[in-house]
């Protein structure tokens, strides 16, 4: 396998884009990435998306986008792993270039959610869970995460307010990201007063969905090495792991086994350890998921991930900066696109493009994308230079 570099990145603002279609949103990010890379054509296209058959009535997104972007005739395919679809597509693009099968790949994560009403989107999101034995009980996707959060608070003795630093950090960082969905500060008082979606998860524990797309161009690293004035970001580690589809089937519902496994393999591949990671874009779909992800990846002991927030370790100058562009909580969570936003944001950190939330001297960054309630987890490690 040969080393692979990210030659270009692109993204759209996460929002309710009433005036733009699925095509236009995905195209916008793809064209931005192609322009950033200085390319007009690539050998293959990988699309990450979760909901288009349900919400947009459109399938076959590989060809749908190769046609729109002008990659007529090229190989194109969609990857789906619920909210982990973006990173799943990225890993496929990575494998294609690393193996020598293609010389360049465009990866686009895209989601257009505002074409359906809220409760229909809630039902569509629940398709990530077990249809026969979870969804049929009326549990929403938020509800599944709420079951995990309640038990975590019970076992480790944390209060709801203790989770506040995670959304507060995410919102503070998003103030400086023009692509973020939300630009509003959250205070501890506001966090405590937020209305409940599924107890104990409130509106300020849960990430807002939205329309958005993010894209990257992958090429062999040796091709980038000689280009002048070109930011160099290499993919140093990539791994994917799975757990049971339903939370009730897990031996330990409070441990993200697939996060642990995929992070471990990605660390080994990149030759790094948790203490080497300068910036970590976590999958904070809910504040409990941020905490469990940090624990499984080796940044905190079991039951102690909450403390990283309380001890101010997660801000851009902390020990392990997370959600530096707003995270899912404030940049927004256009589900199948999210994994690619994370990759783009880590690349921005390694390129030094993050303004007030730039992590000083960031050289190694990690992105972790989660499909379902911990069912599919992909971890990627990027390196500058």
């Amino acid at each position, binding site marked *: 396998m040969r080393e692979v570099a990210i030659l270009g990145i692109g993204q759209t603002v996460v929002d309710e884009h009433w005036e733009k279609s699925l095509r236009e949103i995905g195209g916008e990010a793809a064209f931005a990435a192609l322009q950033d890379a200085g390319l007009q054509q690539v050998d293959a296209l990988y699309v990450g998306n979760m909901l288009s058959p349900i919400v947009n009535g459109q399938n076959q997104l590989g060809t749908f986008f190769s046609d729109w972007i002008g990659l007529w005739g090229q190989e194109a395919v969609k990857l789906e792993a619920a909210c982990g679809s973006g990173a799943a597509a990225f890993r496929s693009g990575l494998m294609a270039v690393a193996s020598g099968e293609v010389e360049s790949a465009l990866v686009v994560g895209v989601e257009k959610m505002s074409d359906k009403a809220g409760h229909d989107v809630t039902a569509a999101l629940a398709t990530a869970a077990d249809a026969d*034995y979870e969804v049929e009980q009326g549990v929403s996707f938020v509800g599944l995460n709420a079951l995990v959060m309640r038990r975590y608070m019970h076992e480790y003795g944390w209060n709801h307010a203790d989770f506040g630093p995670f959304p507060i950090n995410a919102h503070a960082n998003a103030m400086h990201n023009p692509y973020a969905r939300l630009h509003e500060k959250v205070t501890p008082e506001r966090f405590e007063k937020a209305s409940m979606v599924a107890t*104990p998860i409130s509106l300020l524990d849960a990430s807002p969905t939205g329309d958005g797309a993010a894209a990257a161009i992958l090429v062999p690293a040796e091709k980038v090495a000689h280009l002048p004035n070109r930011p160099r970001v290499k993919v140093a580690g990539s791994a994917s792991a799975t757990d049971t589809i339903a939370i009730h089937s897990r031996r330990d519902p409070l441990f993200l086994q697939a996060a642990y496994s995929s992070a471990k393999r990605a660390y080994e591949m990149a030759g790094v350890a948790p203490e080497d990671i300068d910036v970590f874009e976590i999958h904070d779909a809910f504040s409990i998921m941020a905490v469990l992800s940090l624990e499984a990846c080796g940044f905190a002991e079991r039951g102690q991930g909450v403390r990283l927030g309380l001890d101010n370790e997660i801000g851009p100058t902390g020990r392990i900066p997370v959600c530096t562009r707003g995270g899912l909580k404030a940049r927004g969570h256009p589900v199948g696109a999210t994994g690619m936003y994370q990759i783009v944001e880590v690349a921005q950190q390694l390129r030094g493009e993050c303004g007030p939330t730039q992590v000083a001297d960031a050289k190694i960054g990690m992105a972790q994308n989660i499909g379902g309630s911990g069912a599919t987890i992909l971890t990627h490690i990027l390196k500058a230079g």
Partner: protein
Amino acid sequence: MEIPRHWRLKQQRYGLVGEVCPHCDAKIFPPRDVCPNCGDEAKTLYTFSGKGEVFSYTTIYEAPSGFDSNAPYTVALVKLEEGPMITAQLTDLGEQPVEIGMPVEMVTRKMRNDGDERGLIVYGYKFRPAWNMPQG
């Protein structure tokens, strides 16, 4: 409407029929082809008692379509006394506050209408506070 799917799940929905592994005796719900305990083939049917306790719970205020008219309602992870965990709604709670560890038992209740108000009525398992719960 998904009539074949509802019909196919009738043993599980109405009778809490899962499996017992013939190799390691682990009790399994929902039924699956491979025993999660020993990895061997598991296809022997086993009927659960329907008794268990609340492992975790949540009250859902924003419901998925199909369940809107029931909100708010409470969903729990119930640890069955035979071992497995099950996701199910709690019912017949009255004024009683839900607590982790609370003993519960299975009952059959209406889940929702599949389709519009004239659609198939889907029945299934929910759990209510156990009658033999210690008083005071």
